[in-house]
């Protein structure tokens, strides 16, 4: 037991005095007889009171609506009877299942590709101060734009007749007529990939910046080539950050709504479009609630799995 805590246990008032910021004034007014415990209790509630607004905002506008969502998803929209049929109906529908699967495949693919594409860029940006300060706007400006603006840019790039990609491919003689496929799932993949790469570079640059470059030098003096040093030392050390970035990209893509609608609203590849249609076009609100909860469960479980991985292997750092 170290010295300060010994003092605290010897004299109960020392604790109260330490926690009670206006200790001097109070001590003169109130008798010493007051048990330290009671004062500590009152003291804690004094501090607790300050957190009340934040807690009530969080409860009122997150916990409560989510609870309502869950409740209504378990209640029949018309009769008001409790029912599981919205979940059963969703999961049993091949259409929903296929869309959910496409969504997961899309999200996983985009995540993997973004991380792989971003790793070398993040590594270089983290190691070259000059390059980083010159090129960081390329990463940070897109994150200061509403995503719909990125959507406009992608549309300008990929649109069937007017898009730059089609125009230049036709001008170059590679295509004889515009391909619509760029506007289907490949277009969505490109748009998601854009967002994914931006997020991945931003996070991974920060992650690599926390890895001491001298560790690589150490590996090199021990006989590793530069690439081998990166692969055996810096990459493993950046693994937790990489997992966190991957989880973030995955959950963003899985629930992304705007890009699929902007790039192709006719064929709902993505489950969030399905939900939106159920909510607005089909007026199947409770079905949409159930499906939103299914998607949320998916996204949250991926994030939780990543967190589990981090707590399991992240302590290596």
């Amino acid at each position, binding site marked *: 037991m170290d010295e300060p805590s010994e003092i605290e246990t010897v004299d109960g008032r020392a604790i109260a005095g330490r926690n009670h910021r206006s200790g001097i004034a109070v001590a003169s007014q109130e008798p010493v007889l007051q048990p330290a415990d009671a004062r500590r209790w009152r003291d804690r509630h004094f501090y607790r009171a300050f957190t009340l607004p934040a807690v009530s905002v969080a409860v009122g506008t997150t916990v409560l609506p989510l609870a309502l969502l869950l409740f209504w998803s378990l209640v029949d929209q018309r009769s008001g009877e409790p029912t599981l049929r919205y979940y059963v109906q969703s999961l049993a529908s091949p259409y929903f299942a296929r869309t959910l699967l496409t969504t997961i495949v899309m999200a996983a693919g985009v995540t993997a590709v973004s991380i792989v594409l971003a790793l070398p860029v993040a590594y270089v940006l983290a190691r070259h101060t000059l390059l980083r300060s010159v090129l960081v706007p390329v990463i940070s400006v897109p994150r200061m734009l*509403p*995503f719909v603006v990125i959507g*406009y*840019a992608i549309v300008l790039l990929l649109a069937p007749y007017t898009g730059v990609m089609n125009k230049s491919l036709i001008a170059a003689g590679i295509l004889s007529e515009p391909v619509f496929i760029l506007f289907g799932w490949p277009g969505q993949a490109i748009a998601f990939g854009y967002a994914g790469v*931006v997020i991945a570079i931003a*996070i991974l640059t920060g992650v690599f910046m926390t890895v001491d470059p001298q560790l690589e030098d150490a590996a090199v003096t021990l006989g590793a080539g530069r690439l081998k040093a990166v692969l055996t030392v810096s990459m493993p050390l950046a693994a937790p950050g990489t997992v966190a970035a991957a989880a973030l990209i995955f959950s963003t893509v899985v629930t992304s709504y705007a890009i699929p609608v902007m790039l192709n609203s006719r064929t709902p590849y993505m489950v969030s479009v399905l939900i939106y249609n159920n909510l607005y076009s089909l007026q199947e609100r409770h079905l949409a609630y159930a499906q939103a909860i299914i998607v*949320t469960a998916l996204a949250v479980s991926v994030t939780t799995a990543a967190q589990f991985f981090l707590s399991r292997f992240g302590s290596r750092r």
Partner: protein
Amino acid sequence: MTGGGFRAGIPVGRLALMAYVLLMLALLAFPIGLLVVASFQGGMKSTSGLDGWSLSAYAAVPPDYWGALWFTVECAFLATALVFVVAIPAAWGLVRGNLRERRFVSALVLLPDSVPSITLGIALLALFVPLGLSNSFAGIVVALTVTSLSLALRFTEALLEGVPEELEQAAVTMGASRVTAVVTVVLPLLAPGLAIAALFIFVQNLVAFELLLFIAGPRATPISVRLFTDIVDRGVLPQAIAMSAILVYIGIAFHTLVAMTVGARYLAGSTMSRKG
């Protein structure tokens, strides 16, 4: 007599890596550059030449776009102010009170961040409709406040940890009440950090999109939602491209401001996430 030439040969690997990095960054910058170029060509009619430069697209920006932009700024500003009114006392209570429920409160506040924005949007809509808050200024401000609460609280907690408690105690021994001590001693010390945090949160609020899609309506339309409904309903309009380009300029301005105040390092290293 020159030795040490082990890198004197062409460093193929290094060159390839640098080429790759520059190519990737160019690819990322390309669509945004394209947008800006298109905005000066009256839309997307002749995106492949320098001929036909005009400001017609900017001139065609209708007043309701400007209205939507101003509406967004108002919402973002108010929400940023509100979130700190809530977050500063909470952070103080959690840090100084050393409360047992600190982790629980952090998790609670983080909930809006960990739930997909489509779900939170639908949930808020379900709550707001009976309250008459959907399709309203207040509804959007509330939604923005919730989603930025965790960031504001984390920022403020971190800043408060950096201010020694002894300063507050000194003020109290000189006769200040605890709240006065915070207001007169702690807040001024936090101010620079809070200003930067507020800037971040303001930008985040300004560009919020997917969540607001559900709460917005004809009477309360942030610019991002307006641009979205236009492209879905009416296709790509020249004035929408001009407005997107204006948002790009605003983004660049904010980037420059943040880079100048905080340093570019923070921008790159920040793990601050943003959805949609």
